[in-house]
């Protein structure tokens, strides 16, 4: 490097930094001792041994200092250039390089904020936000509000981003391209950010294909996920379940006749005989609802049942004992189950809440569809007995109300529902116990209450959460239940203890929904941090993190064979996950708005979803789950299978539930605005 150049650079540097006196002095000195200066420079060079000044890196640094504009401009230009470079790069590597942009972008923004360049940060943010608006609109909305360094400290999300390294999978060549570019253009700001904030997983060989690009959203969390997800889970069903015994009994009645089975099988056989007479009596009551059941039940039994093929596992929890009567009624249901498939769609019975005045927050339907409960924003919980409603026998209802110490309704005690009062805040979730004798409700007053439908009274108030409890779910066997709260925890309780048994902490934001695995050993939680986690109930450990949703997760369902899970989000996307691998099998697109509720049919062939767009959709999940993901890259349409869209009349669907006989119940509140 020429000495004169260095002199110029030094001058420029001094000028830029505002060292006017030093600059003047320097120039004076230069003018006075031109030779001297060069000599001293030469001496310095000599002193440096190998010639420090001729070292290109130092020269570059000096150059950088002199060239550089203000700090914000460095960020702005640096990012701008990186962006246009990435967009102009080779098509094959482009999507990988584009993936780098987003973390760089948000860190640039946060750096600027942290350094106090608030105005510039805002300009920077606005000029590039459109690039990322599609994929990360939620994050952007949050970040947009950050307006001072203190906010960065305060905001969990920003804090989290600052403390985690983004992980990006990138192929060898793309990585080299990126490094080359950064060095060639000497954009040290960008280089710094990329070094500091991004953790590259460089893989040899070809770049990953675009369709495989589920990881876009995962950038900031895969770190945990990759650590956690390899853990083993036993997704199988409980051994010796009632279904199991039923299957055995149904397929080998002879065996049972021989009497070689245990007492239970004999008893079951007994049931079968009895059901012959029972059917007529019972049929009258249920035939209306299950008329489809009787028709299909005979021919369909031989079909392969996905549930039966699932492996069996031991229960980790002590399970409540089931009475024989209950067992019998369940067996009766199983016998009358309609086999559903993509060609045999279910019947849907819809319960419409009218005159709710926008006050209905949640509703739930009991397993057999006879009871419907609604949780209201005025803290009340109302339960309708649909069987009684049909018979118009409101007298009994009135008496019940009196027992409960409630005032009689305005129409002389002729209220069509039983009213449960006790909460002091809007009710956000209601759930029936599997047998329909208990109801749990969770409320914004941070409590969960247990009610008895027999006594029409509040039994227990579970206090433990510190913030509104968004969701509560009974376990498939009853007795245990799980709750999800704004305090970012999910808790597992048993009915007989007022303290939680387990606290699942780990989500980065509200836990919005919770769902039990059919074998009761796991619970799944969906959160506002856009992830779904699977927890071991016995150990309280997080076993899986499912990343891929682009917005808040609102609903969850786990298939009856325990192998798959569906999750629905605020945008209307439903994702189906494989629990064992932790990967998304297929996203199901179609809903235009929040997916409030999801439900698998009893044999796991159909998935039903209810949404704020006033529709119930039925999805064929057999085709999508049977074909492995990599076979479907050819883009066959079998991957997305919407079987049917059932529109309601301006009634958003709040809840839906398959009965054991595979009749689908759904409920929602009629709303004029929708």
């Amino acid at each position: 490097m020429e000495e004169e150049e260095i002199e110029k650079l030094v001058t420029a540097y001094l000028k830029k930094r505002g060292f006017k006196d030093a600059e003047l002095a320097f120039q004076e000195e230069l003018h006075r001792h031109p030779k001297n200066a060069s000599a001293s420079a030469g001496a310095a060079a000599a002193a440096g041994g190998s010639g420090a000044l001729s070292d290109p890196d130092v020269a570059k640094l000096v150059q950088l200092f002199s060239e550089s504009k203000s700090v914000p401009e460095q960020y702005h230009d640096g990012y701008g250039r990186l962006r246009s470079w990435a967009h102009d790069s080779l098509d094959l590597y482009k999507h990988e390089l584009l993936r780098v942009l987003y973390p760089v972008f948000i860190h640039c923004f946060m750096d600027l904020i942290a350094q106090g360049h608030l105005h510039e940060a805002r300009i920077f943010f606005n000029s590039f936000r459109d690039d990322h608006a599609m994929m990360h609109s939620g994050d952007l909305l949050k970040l947009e509000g950050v307006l001072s360094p203190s906010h960065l400290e305060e905001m969990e999300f920003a804090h989290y981003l600052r403390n985690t390294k983004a992980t990006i999978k990138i192929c060898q060549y793309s990585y080299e391209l990126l490094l080359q570019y950064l060095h060639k253009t000497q954009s040290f700001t960008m280089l710094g950010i990329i070094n500091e904030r991004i953790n590259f997983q460089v893989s040899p060989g070809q770049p990953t294909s675009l369709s495989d690009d589920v990881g876009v959203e995962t950038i900031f969390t895969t770190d945990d996920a990759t650590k956690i997800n390899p853990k083993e889970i036993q997704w199988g069903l409980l051994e010796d379940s009632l279904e199991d015994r039923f299957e055995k009994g149904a397929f080998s009645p002879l065996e049972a006749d021989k009497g070689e089975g245990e007492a239970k099988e004999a008893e079951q056989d007994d049931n079968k005989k009895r059901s012959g007479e029972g059917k007529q009596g019972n049929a009258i009551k249920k035939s209306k609802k299950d008329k489809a059941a009787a028709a299909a039940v005979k021919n369909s039994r031989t079909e392969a049942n996905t549930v039966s093929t699932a492996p069996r596992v031991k229960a980790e929890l002590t399970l409540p004992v089931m009475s024989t009567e209950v067992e019998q009624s369940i067996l009766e249901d199983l016998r009358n189950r309609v086999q559903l498939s993509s060609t045999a769609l279910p019947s849907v019975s819809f319960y419409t809440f009218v005159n709710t005045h926008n006050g209905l927050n949640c509703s739930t339907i009991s397993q057999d569809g006879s009871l419907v409960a609604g949780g209201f924003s005025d803290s009340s919980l109302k339960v309708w007995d649909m069987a009684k409603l049909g018979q118009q026998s409101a007298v009994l209802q009135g008496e019940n109300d009196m027992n409960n110490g409630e005032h009689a309704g305005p129409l002389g005690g002729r209220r069509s529902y039983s009213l449960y009062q006790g909460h002091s805040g809007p009710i956000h979730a209601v759930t029936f116990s599997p047998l329909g004798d208990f109801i749990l409700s969770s409320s914004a007053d941070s409590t969960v209450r247990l009610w008895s439908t027999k006594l029409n009274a509040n039994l227990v108030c579970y206090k433990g959460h510190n913030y509104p409890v968004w969701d509560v779910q009974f376990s498939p066997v009853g007795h245990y239940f799980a709750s999800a709260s704004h305090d970012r925890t999910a808790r597992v309780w048993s009915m007989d203890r007022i303290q939680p048994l387990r606290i699942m902490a780990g989500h980065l934001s509200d836990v919005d929904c919770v769902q039990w695995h059919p074998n009761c050993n796991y619970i799944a939680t969906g959160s506002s941090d856009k992830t779904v986690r699977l927890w071991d109930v016995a150990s309280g450990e997080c076993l899986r993190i499912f990343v891929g949703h682009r917005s808040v997760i609102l609903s969850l369902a786990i298939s009856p064979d325990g192998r798959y899970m569906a999750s629905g989000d605020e945008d209307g996307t439903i994702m189906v996950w494989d629990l064992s691998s932790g990967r998304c099998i297929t996203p199901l697109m179609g809903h235009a708005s929040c997916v409030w509720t999801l439900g698998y049919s009893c044999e796991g062939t159909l998935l039903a979803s209810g949404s704020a767009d006033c529709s119930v959709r039925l999805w064929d999940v057999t085709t999508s789950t049977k074909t492995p993901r990599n076979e479907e890259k050819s883009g066959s349409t079998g991957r997305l299978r919407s079987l049917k869209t059932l529109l309601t009349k301006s009634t958003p669907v709040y809840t839906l539930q398959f009965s054991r006989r595979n009749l689908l119940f759904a409920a929602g509140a009629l709303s004029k605005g929708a």
Partner: protein
Amino acid sequence: MSFVVKESVEVIAQCIGITNLSPEVAEALGPDVEYRIREIIQEAVKCMRHSKRTVLTGDDVDSALRLRNVEPTYGFTSNDAPRFKRAAGHKDLFYIDEKDLEFKDVMDAPLPRAPPETSVIAHWLAVEGVQPAIPENPPVEAASEGTRFEYKDDGISADGSLSVKHVVTKELQLYYEKVRELAFKKPNSMIFKEALQSLATDSGLQPLVPFFVSSIADEVSKNLTKIQLLFALVRVVRSLLHNPHIHIEPYLHQLMPSLVTCVVTRQLGNHVSDNHWELRNMSASSMASICKRYGHAYQNLQPRVVRTLLHAFLDPNNSLPQHYGAVRGLAGLGPTAVRMFILPNLEPYMQLIKAEIAHDNLKNYSKKLEAWRVYRALMCAAGMCMYERLKLLPNLFSPPSRAIWKNTRKVATVLPNKRRASSDNLLPQPPQKKPAIEANPMVRPMGGSMQMSHMPMSSMQVAGASGTMTNPGVMGMGRLVHHEGVQGRDPRNLAARSSSVLAQAWKETVNAGQVLESLFDHFGESMFCFTVKPELSIFL
């Protein structure tokens, strides 16, 4: 840089009585206020989601404030979302339009009615995957989007020529072009007849059906004056209908209007010599065959056709050829249709026709001919109908005797008056008649019951006479036996015994009798050829 500018902060500070706010503080507060607002909104949205709503309300904001341990802003709660108004001159400034209320007015106002109690209504959203068409479910049209999607899944597209184009091979395209050309240029040639034959039998034409159908619909509406072309097109339709390999049901809705046009339009062809009568006949028979074949599957097909035809028939302003077409069309739909829709209106219409026929004006000669044609068409229709009726009542032509002129005469004087009374007020206002006809289900066993229901008693009285009255036809053969007294009394006794079965049977008889009687009135002896000859029945 922040949405909350310094000035806003200053104004708010003044509002709450802080006067000595330094500018730096105001400037620093702005961004923080914005951050806090965003935070609150974020929490409020969470509350909204968990209340299963998609519209943010004041309640949600209150809940969010409570979550943050902040005193909620009271007074903004409402069950409905607030209505914002856009501030004039600003793109993104909104406000809530609130009116000042006089406190006294609010106090004096009567209490509002208690809101109705929340309740739950159950209905079937779907039965085995199919949405029943009940008022609780949205109309089916709204759901069509979904069905269209599923169509595509199967690789079949019901509409959209684009995707069909893939399927249509070059050969088929040539075939289609050729047939079209023939229909246009040489509708009478031998080769066109061959083409029609091929259309009626070829099994591979399904891909072309949408093209044929839409082209027919287009051409018919464009070329109402070119009678030859219309003939050719109707023949094509007939061939397509004949083809057992073609699934034409999805296109019926496109096909029917063209056919109906060919039946009842005002003018077909532009020459007097054009044989539009034949065209009408042919179209009517095609239409009838469609109704016969698909009427069961599409319940509203036949009623709609009937309604159109009846409109044409009942409107006295329509030209006679239109009436002719309508009559032919109705006759094609079978004797039931004739009995239900033509016979009740026959009396007044005959007067109209007879007036035309009676015109001995040379100028109106063509019109007279037209009237004759309509007359004959009516006669045929009525005759066929009567023939069917008589065939059902074998007892009526048992002994070749009974009827006496006097008797029939008597009834005849009673009956037509009645009929006229009912049909007279019918004719001037045909539209009013329409609902009554529509209300009448097509499958009603007895068309005549309309008149019957007016006066069951008197009709029972008439029954005695009419039992004999059926035989004007027989009477013409000169066999008069004075049996009427006995015959007349007999049914009355039967009726008196209130045997409902017999009453029913007699009603039938009465109807048939009435029908025949009135027809005889109108058409005279030419009706006889439609009676079942007892001699013939020997062979049955």
